[in-house]
């Protein structure tokens, strides 16, 4: 296993000093494909927000190997349709981290954003309004935007929510290809077990306030899952 890019040490996460999950310790190896699993309200989003620095941990710390840039792919439904942005303008935001305040985006960065749209198959609809794209098309634009940040870690928050089965399959195949070809660290938040079985190497399962860790094969085997759910009943 390669060296960790993210390490969580005795971390408690939550809101207003009220922990949702406590005493979490695990690491994410560089170049791995890790899935964060859990039911609604299990703390997936809180964990993700804490990892991204959007909210501080209640206790403990997160070590991130420098330099590590996060390419964040939020859920497409989070975006307000009032904002009149084209797919290209959304993808272009990915390069803003490299362009200083008050400076215009240079041509080479604009070309790079276009290249990212091409790589995700989003180029043909990049001139349309983002709010008018389908769920799958929006996700491709958002992945292009995340790639435009030139990330070390690609963080995807339920990218298949509101996306049909065909588009879901295509999206996950694409993310897997990215992982294999660019050696990107992938952190995928989902509650879709078949997708996790197929694509993830490591699983972080948030269940009943506990954090279960293991490979997809170990944790998602029939026997282990029965054990986990018996634990819940018992």
């Amino acid at each position, binding site marked *: 296993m390669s060296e960790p890019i993210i390490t969580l040490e005795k971390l408690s996460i939550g809101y207003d000093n009220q922990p949702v999950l406590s005493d979490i310790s695990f690491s994410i190896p560089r170049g791995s494909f890790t899935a964060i699993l859990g039911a609604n309200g299990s703390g997936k989003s809180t964990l993700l*927000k804490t990892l*991204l*620095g*959007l909210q501080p941990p209640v206790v403990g710390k997160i070590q991130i190997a420098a330099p590590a840039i*996060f*390419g*964040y792919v*939020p859920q497409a439904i*989070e*975006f*307000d349709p*009032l*904002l*009149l*942005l*084209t797919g290209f*303008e*959304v993808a272009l*935001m990915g390069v*803003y*981290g490299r*362009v200083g*305040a*008050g400076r215009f*985006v240079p041509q080479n960065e604009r070309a790079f954003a276009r290249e990212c749209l091409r790589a995700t198959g989003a180029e043909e609809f990049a001139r349309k*309004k983002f709010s008018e794209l389908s769920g799958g098309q929006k996700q491709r634009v958002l992945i292009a*935007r995340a790639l435009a*940040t030139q990330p070390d870690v690609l963080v995807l928050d339920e990218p298949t929510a509101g996306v049909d089965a065909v588009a879901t399959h295509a999206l996950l195949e694409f993310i897997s290809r990215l992982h294999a070809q660019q050696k990107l660290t992938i952190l995928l938040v989902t509650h879709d077990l078949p997708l996790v079985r197929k694509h993830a190497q490591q699983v972080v399962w948030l269940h009943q306030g506990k954090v279960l860790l293991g490979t997809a094969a170990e944790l998602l085997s029939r026997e282990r899952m029965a054990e986990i759910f018996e634990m819940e009943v018992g």
Partner: protein
Amino acid sequence: MESLKEILSPDFLLRNSLYTSMLIGFACPLVGVFLVLRRLVFMGVALPQISSTGVAVALSLPMWLGASQPEHTATTEHALAFAGSTVFSLTAILILAFLERRGRGHPEGRLGAAYVVAAALSILLLSKNRFAEVGWLDLLKGEIITVSNADLLLTAATLAIVLVVLGLFQKELLLVSFDRAMAVTLGKMVFFWDVVLYLLIGLTVSMAVLSVGPLISFGFLLIPPLTAHLFAKNMRQFAVFASLIGGIAAFLGFWIAYQWDCPIGPADVVLLGVIYALGFTVKKLASLFQSKSTG
């Protein structure tokens, strides 16, 4: 058409009022775009009213300090009003920004309460001020007929600063408005950019309230962006269309008011309302026609 020729003449007596109205008309919608996009329309109504209370407080200061009679000239009165308007609107917007960042409570409720208390306080202050003159009420209603060259310059300079900052930092302001999480992961100082945006809004509102009053300021902040949103295809078009609608309506409103001898501000807002209603109808008819032709 005679009145139009008169208005366009360089020797027109009220030319500074016209220029000021048009400056406000062009500039207010540019910051109004952000209020609409960030769903802060209530702030658009509360802030001008708070700014207006600042004017009333500033104009009451000489009496509170023991002045036995109004010694101030129109220039000092305007300077006092400008200071009161700016201090109140900037303070209010920074407090509201801080509360919004904490993300607790009811933002709409806070804005509603701020609006109604500010409105009531303005009335109280004016009613208890023995120096209150018709001119003061005009100032609060935005019925400034005579605008000095210095006032016009001050308005133009302030609005120019707003425009330059908006233009230079549009990508930062857009990013924090569109996706705060992304802005944080890119290492942008979200709170700082929020404050910059709010200061720009506060500054524009202060100038607008002094020139056209709180109600008309709200009209210019809100209606042109709503109309532009019906037709714009991207953010640039949204901002440009909104600004043009505001500027042109300010000119036409002034002309109508001059022609029919009615108050300028209300004429502007009614005209903006008519433009919005027309735009809405055209948009609805166009989509109806489109759906019929494709269906």
